[in-house]
């Protein structure tokens, strides 16, 4: 706590943000009693005999405090802190808030092209996994399609995260299918030549499944046939 007090006394926003971020993350991820208590103390949330679940709104306050400081000081931590807020909302079941926060936070990851290039695609994809779950649960398919396409375009602009494209395109195709936009589903899946080979072998069946059935729904049976045959082949050897 001394470190935080010190940072506050010298108006060192970056240190304050980092400390708050770590406190929140420590509590949220590890469930550490000490981390939680420190975080709660910072936000005056401490009450006796609180249950672990009751701590969560307090943790959000820690993150919100960090987020406000990051925004005010133009810190590069704004994105990561907002994604943490999204994660917490997601785990609390606040899907709408989580969706907004993920979208906003993930965009901020790309503000600095150099930093964007250093991002770990696997971690980013985990965030997208949860964001997509929000889209599915809220049936916000069109919003999801628009966001993912926009995100891919931003990734292209900064020249980062190309390895995520197959998964993101597959998600776009899936959401097009689930929202009965079969033509668009085919367009995205067929239009991204070669993505099927970049997908992990265990996921290729999904590509063929959505593509084949999108053709079937459009009564384009000749086009559907080879894709469905491929699906059966891939699905059966798994």
């Amino acid at each position, binding site marked *: 706590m001394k470190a935080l007090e010190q940072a506050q006394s010298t108006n060192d926003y970056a240190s304050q943000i980092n400390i708050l971020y770590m406190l929140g993350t420590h509590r949220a991820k590890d469930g550490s009693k000490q981390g939680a208590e420190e975080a709660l103390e910072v936000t005056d949330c401490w009450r006796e005999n609180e249950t672990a679940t009751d701590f969560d709104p307090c943790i959000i306050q820690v993150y919100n405090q960090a987020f406000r400081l990051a925004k005010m000081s133009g810190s590069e931590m704004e994105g990561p802190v907002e994604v943490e807020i999204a994660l917490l909302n997601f785990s609390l079941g606040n899907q709408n808030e989580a969706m907004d926060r993920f979208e906003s936070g993930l965009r901020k990851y790309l503000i600095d092209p150099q930093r964007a290039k250093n991002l770990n695609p*696997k971690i980013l*994809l*985990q965030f*997208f*996994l949860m964001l*997509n779950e929000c889209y599915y649960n809220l049936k916000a398919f069109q919003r999801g399609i628009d966001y993912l396409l926009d995100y891919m375009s931003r990734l292209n602009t900064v020249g980062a995260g190309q390895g995520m494209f197959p*998964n*993101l395109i*597959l*998600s776009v195709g*899936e959401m097009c299918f689930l929202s009965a936009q079969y033509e668009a589903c085919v367009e995205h899946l067929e239009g991204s030549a070669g993505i099927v080979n970049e997908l*992990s072998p*265990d*996921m290729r*069946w*999904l590509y063929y*499944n959505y593509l*084949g*059935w999108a053709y*079937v729904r459009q009564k384009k*049976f*000749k086009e*559907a*046939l080879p894709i*469905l*045959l491929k*699906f*059966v082949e891939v*699905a*059966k050897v*798994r």
Partner: protein
Amino acid sequence: MYLQTIEVPEGTVLDSLEQISAIHDILGDKDAAVAAFKLALAEVRKINLQEKPILGIKHYYFLGIFSVNRLGDPVQAKELLETAYIVAKRMPDFPWHSVAVDLSDVKYVMKDRDGAAAQLNALLQETNVDDEITIKVLYKLARIHSEMANKSKALEIYERLVEKVRTSEKSVLPEPLVAHRVGKLYLLTGNLSKASHFLKLAQSDETDPELKSQVGVALTAVKAQAGERQEALKGVEELVLITENSITKDTVPIGELKTDLGEILLILGEYNRATEEFQKVTDPTVINLHKP
């Protein structure tokens, strides 16, 4: 989005194999359709019906209907539909009635009329059968009895059917169509008052020219058989007018109408006119002698 291996959900491969078979059939490749069907068949047998009854019913039912309608294999269809039926029937609140109707259809296609009738009769004993299903069951059962020359039973069921159609809010079969069938059947049994009663019920439909002409013919035949000569001849003239107006319009099957008219004229002793009408059946200038 998926980051880890996810299992292919049970039934997904089967869905695709069924679709592949259907597409081959649509594209006219029967052999490929049968080959894919066989693969689907092997796949459906893997379903644990105790654990996944709904999935089982869905696919056994689909493959059963597919094999009779698309592949012309009622024997295979019967086995598949019977499985779907057994699984469906032991599930509480499952709508198994329509599966039973389809199973009776397959038995009917296999010329097993007794089996089909037994299946339908069992359904009639059930309570809470939807009106739509009851109407279908009565109609099919009446048809079977009629074909088995069991006219009195057929008529009894047809009368129940007319009543059901009249009182039901679900119009699966139009009442005039059913009434026409009942009326004609009574005409064949010689019960002219009942025939007349039901044929007059059938007259309520003004929208179907073919049915209207058929009902007109049957009513005229009733009058002819009842000895109401003048009334019957008047009916004949009206029908002749209909046939002349319909020759170029293709609204009624002229050939059948002329044949029926000829038969009525024979009853009335109008042999020359009857011959004329019969001859017109083979007239090459009449284009719509028989409807497809």
